[in-house]
C-alpha cells in the first residue's frame, strides 16, 4: 500500500516536472534543437546514406573547383575551400563535435564529481590539498592549458578532448564539493549515521543522488560551452591540416575568403552558435524543474 502511494507520488512529481518544463517555451525550443542535432549525429553514425552522404568521417574536397561557390541548388549552403560542400560537411561535423564534446563532459564531470564528493566527505587535510590543486588548475586560462597539454600530447582530435577534460574537471570538483557540503548537513544524513550506516554507503546511496541532479544541469549547460571551446581550438589550428569535418576547422577553411565568400564563415559558425544557445535554453528549463523555488 505504502509502496503504491510512493509510486503514485513519484508519478505525480514527474508529471509536474514535465509541465513546469513545457511551460517554458524557450526551453522546449532548445530541447527540440538539441534533439535535431542528436538525430543528425545518430544518422551520420548509423546510416549516412539516408541523407545521401558517402563518407561521414572525412571532408570531400574538389580540387577541380577549389574556390568557394555561393549557395545554389547543387550546394544549398555553398562551398568552402577547397571545393567542399558546406551543408553535407556541417551535417558530418555535428556528429564529430557532439561525440567529442560528450566525451570531454563525461570524463570531466565523472572525475570531478568523484573527487569533489570524496574531498568534501573526507574534509581536513585531503580536502585542503584537493582544493589547492583545483585553485592552481584554475589559475591557468583553460584555453592556454589545453594548448599546452595538447602540444605535449600531439595535435589530434583525441588529444584535444583529453586536454579539455583535464582542464575541465576542477570545475565539477568544486561544484560537487559544495553540493556535498550542504547535503552533509541534512538531518537524514545525521539519521543514517545514527542508524549505523557505513561511510561508503552514505556517500553513494544518500549523498550522491542529491548531488547528481545539479551536476547534470551543469553538464547540460557545459555541453554547449565545450563544443564552442572545442571548435575554437580547432579554429586556431589545433587540428593539423586534415580532412576532418569539424565546425571550427570548417570555419577556418573559409578565413582566407572573408572578403569574397562570407557564407563559408557564417554557416559553420551559425551551427555552433545555435547549438550553444539551444543548450543554454534547455539548461535554464531544466534548472526550473529541479529548483523547487522556481516551481509554480
Amino acid at each position, binding site marked *: 500500500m505504502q509502496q503504491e502511494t510512493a509510486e503514485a507520488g513519484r508519478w505525480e512529481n514527474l508529471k509536474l516536472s514535465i509541465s513546469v518544463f513545457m511551460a517554458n517555451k524557450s526551453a522546449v525550443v532548445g530541447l527540440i534543437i538539441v534533439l535535431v542535432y542528436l538525430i543528425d549525429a545518430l544518422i551520420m553514425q548509423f546510416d549516412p546514406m539516408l541523407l545521401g552522404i558517402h563518407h561521414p568521417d572525412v571532408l570531400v574536397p574538389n580540387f577541380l573547383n577549389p574556390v568557394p561557390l555561393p549557395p545554389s541548388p547543387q550546394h544549398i549552403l555553398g562551398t568552402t575551400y577547397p571545393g567542399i560542400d558546406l551543408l553535407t560537411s556541417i551535417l558530418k561535423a555535428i556528429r564529430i563535435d557532439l561525440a567529442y564534446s560528450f566525451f570531454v563532459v563525461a570524463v570531466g564531470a565523472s572525475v570531478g564529481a568523484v573527487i569533489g564528493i570524496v574531498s568534501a566527505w573526507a574534509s581536513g587535510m585531503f580536502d585542503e590539498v584537493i582544493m*589547492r*590543486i583545483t*585553485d*592552481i*588548475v584554475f*589559475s*591557468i*586560462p*583553460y*584555453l*592556454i*592549458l589545453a*594548448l*599546452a*597539454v*595538447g*602540444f*605535449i*600530447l600531439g*595535435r589530434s582530435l583525441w588529444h584535444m578532448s583529453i586536454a579539455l577534460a583535464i582542464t575541465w574537471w576542477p570545475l565539477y570538483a568544486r561544484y560537487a564539493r559544495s553540493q556535498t557540503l550542504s547535503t552533509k548537513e541534512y538531518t537524514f544524513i545525521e539519521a543514517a549515521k545514527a542508524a549505523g550506516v557505513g561511510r561508503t554507503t552514505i556517500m553513494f546511496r544518500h549523498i550522491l543522488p542529491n548531488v547528481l541532479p545539479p551536476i547534470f544541469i551543469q553538464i547540460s549547460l557545459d555541453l*554547449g560551452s565545450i563544443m*564552442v*571551446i572545442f*571548435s*575554437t581550438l580547432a*579554429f*586556431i*589550428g*589545433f587540428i593539423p591540416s586534415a580532412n576532418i569535418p569539424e565546425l*571550427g576547422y570548417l*570555419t577556418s577553411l573559409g*578565413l582566407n575568403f*572573408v*572578403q569574397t565568400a*562570407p557564407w563559408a*564563415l*557564417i554557416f559553420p*559558425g551559425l551551427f*555552433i*552558435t545555435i547549438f*550553444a*544557445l539551444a543548450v*543554454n535554453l534547455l539548461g535554464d528549463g531544466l534548472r526550473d524543474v529541479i529548483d523547487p523555488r522556481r516551481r509554480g
Partner: protein
Amino acid sequence: MKLWVYIVRRLLLFIPTLIGLTFIVFVLSHSGGTNLVLAEYVNPRLTGEARTLLIQKLTEEFHLNQPIYIQYFYWLYQIMQGNWGYTNTPIFSGSVVTAIELFLPNTAMIAAVASILIWVIGVPLGVYSAVNRDSATDQVVRVGSFSLYAMPIYLIAVALILAVGVYLKILPFAGVVNPLLVSNLSWYHNGISYPTHIILIDAILHNNWQVAWNAFLHLLLPSLTLALATVASIIRILRASMLEVLDQDYIRLAWSKGISAKLVYNLHARRNALLPLLTLFGLTVAFLLGGAVVIETVFSYPGIGYWTTQALLNNDVGGIMASTLLFGLILVSANLILDIAYAFVDPRIRY
C-alpha cells in the same frame, strides 16, 4: 581580523599557488616521455660543436643527470633568474624574455582598450535593462547578451570583420598598422616599434599623428571583439544584481523620502550592484587572456596570444611553456590583487 593580517595570509597562500603553477608547467614539459628542457633552451639556430657545448653547459646548469624532482628546483632557479629559454616561430625567433617584451605590451593594449569598452558598454546597458525591466530594450539587451554569450569568440571576430571591415570598409582588420605608412620610419624596424613596442604610443611619442591614428584604427576591431565577448556576462550579472538591490528596503526608503529616480538609481542602487562585478573581474582577466589568443590569431595582431598559437603550429616548446607560465602568473596575480581590493571594499570578506 585586521586588514594587514588578511593581506599577509593571502600573500602566504600565493606561494603554494605559484609553486603549483610552475610545477604543472614543469611536469608538462616532461610528460611526453622526453625531457623538453633541452629543446626549450637550445637556440635552434645553433649547430655543430657550439650546439654540443651548449647542451653540455645546460645539462650542468639544469642538473639534467639528477632525478626529476631535483631538476625541478634547478629549473625554477633558472626561471627566477629570468632564463626562460628560446622560442622559434615565424613571427619571432630568439630568447623568450625578448619575445615577451615585444608582444606583451600589444596584448596589454588590447586588453586595456577592451576593458574601457566593457565598462562603457556593459554598465549602462546592464543598469538600464534592470531599471526598465521587461521593456522592449530590456528584451533586446537580454537576447543580445545571451547570443553573444553562446557565440564562439572567433565568430564574433568574423562577424565584426564582415560587417565593419568588409561591407562598411571603415576599419582595417589585419595587423597593427598599415605597412606603407611605417616603411621609412627611424623608430620602426622589422615590425617592431621603439621604445615601448606599442606602435600607437610610440607614434604619439614621436609626434607622428598619421601613424598614431592608423594604429588606433587597427586597435579598434580586436578590442571591440574582446569587449563584446566579455560584456555579455557582465550585463547578465549586473542586471541580476541590480534587480536584487532595487528590491531592498533601503531603496524603498529612498523612494519614500522622495529622492529623484536618477539619484536612487545612480547613487543608491548602482554602487551596491557593482560589488558582485568586482568578483567577476578575476574571471574577466582570465577571459580577456584566453580571448586574446583567439582574437590576436584572427586579426594577426602580434601579441602574446598570436605568438602562442604560432608556437603551437610550429612545435615550439619554449613558446608554449613560457606563455602557459606567463598567462598563469598574470591570472594568479590578478586574483591576488582582486582579493585584497575586495577586502578593502567589503570588510565582511576578511572574516
